[in-house]
């Protein structure tokens, strides 16, 4: 599955999509992503030419992220319910069909090679791994992987991958949910979860999912 999507990813997706919107939308999505639209800069300028993300810019990866999730974020930036100094103006320059086209384009790109997930092996887990893999049930905190997939690879169109997210980005998102500055997500799940995390737990779990071997900017954008 991984191999097939790596080799044929976008082309295959276009070929098998039933009818209507997608076949027409995909080239438009690609054009916006790579070259920008109506004054909006290309997505790839910050998110990487393959949508792989850029930790130094706190730009999360977009490749292989669910289209419903991506479209919802663009809509939230455009509506002002999610705020970011770079993304808010960009999203406002895109029409709704353009937002959806670009979301579909990135959702069909092959995800970057995932960092090796930490193994539990019966040994004591780090505090971040403990939260990510087991949660903290006495405080009604499920493990991250229970919704976001094994090792945080993402599930379906609405549970985005966590693996490889820049840690400063993840901390900023959890704080945004804690302070009501980001829409609560499906069923209010993430705002409920974020409000049960202490600052130390937030840091720990963000470090756990952060790319390995990449320098993380220290406390930027917080």
């Amino acid at each position: 599955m991984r191999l097939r999507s790596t080799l044929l990813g976008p082309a295959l997706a276009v070929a098998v999509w039933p009818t209507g919107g997608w076949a027409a939308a995909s080239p438009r999505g690609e054009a916006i992503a790579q070259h920008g639209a109506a004054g909006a800069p290309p997505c790839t300028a910050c998110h990487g030419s393959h949508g792989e993300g850029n930790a130094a810019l706190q730009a999360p990866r977009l490749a292989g992220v669910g289209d419903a999730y991506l479209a919802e974020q663009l809509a939230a930036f455009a509506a002002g319910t999610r705020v970011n100094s770079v993304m808010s103006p960009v999203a406002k320059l895109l029409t709704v069909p353009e937002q959806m086209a670009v979301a579909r384009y990135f959702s069909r790109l092959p995800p970057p090679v995932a960092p090796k997930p930490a193994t539990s092996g019966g040994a004591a887990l780090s505090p971040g791994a403990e939260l990510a893999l087991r949660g903290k049930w006495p405080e009604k905190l499920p493990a991250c992987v229970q919704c976001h997939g094994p090792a945080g690879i993402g599930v379906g169109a609405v549970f985005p991958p966590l693996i490889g997210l820049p840690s400063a980005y993840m901390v900023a998102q959890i704080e945004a949910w804690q302070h009501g500055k980001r829409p609560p997500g499906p069923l209010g799940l993430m705002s409920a979860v974020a409000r049960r995390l202490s600052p130390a737990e937030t840091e720990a779990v963000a470090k756990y999912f952060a790319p390995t071997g990449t320098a993380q900017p220290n406390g930027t954008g917080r």
Partner: protein
Amino acid sequence: MIQLWRLALAVLVCSIGGMVQVADAQNGLSAGNFHPPPERAIPDTPLGRAIRFGEDIFRHTRAAAPAFVGNELACSNCHIDAGRLADAAPMWAAWVAFPAYRNKNERVNTFAERLQGCFRYSMNGKRPPLGDKVLVALESYSAWLARGAPTGAEMPGRGYPRLPKPALPPDYARGESLYAARCATALTGPASRPRDRWHFRRYGGGTPTIGGPA
């Protein structure tokens, strides 16, 4: 096959129960007063190693006990927090309740026999023979979680909470809109991508709100 389907459905429903539970703020489920010991308190002794193996089976059932498991589930999918969480069939409450007479097979069952039933039915596998190291490990783990609990007492938090009888009779239309509002996020969405089809069956959030194990 029917058995497996029913099991899958039960766990899926349970998953949603868990997610909704997370979404709701504190909703006042009885937690009981008993607190099982944390994993770090497992002693480094021969007994401690059996306890640790028991916890490992609980979390990674197929990998740790492959000879007796016929599906992708793990004990901790239904017994949340590896059998620690009150109101999610905690093992510390089960341990002090056996041996017990069960209507299901109309005889007195030991704790080990009850565990065999889990492997045969919930895990769609084979009963480990009595005395097998898998059963010994699970007994050791359960007994350790229950250390200090009063034997034979009715422990608050045992099993799953009983739900009150619904005020309204069942209704397909209401069910459909409820499904769309509260369930589809975890069911319909992931089901559309083959890789994720069974995600919430295997990793489901847990079930402190819905009664009845498989």
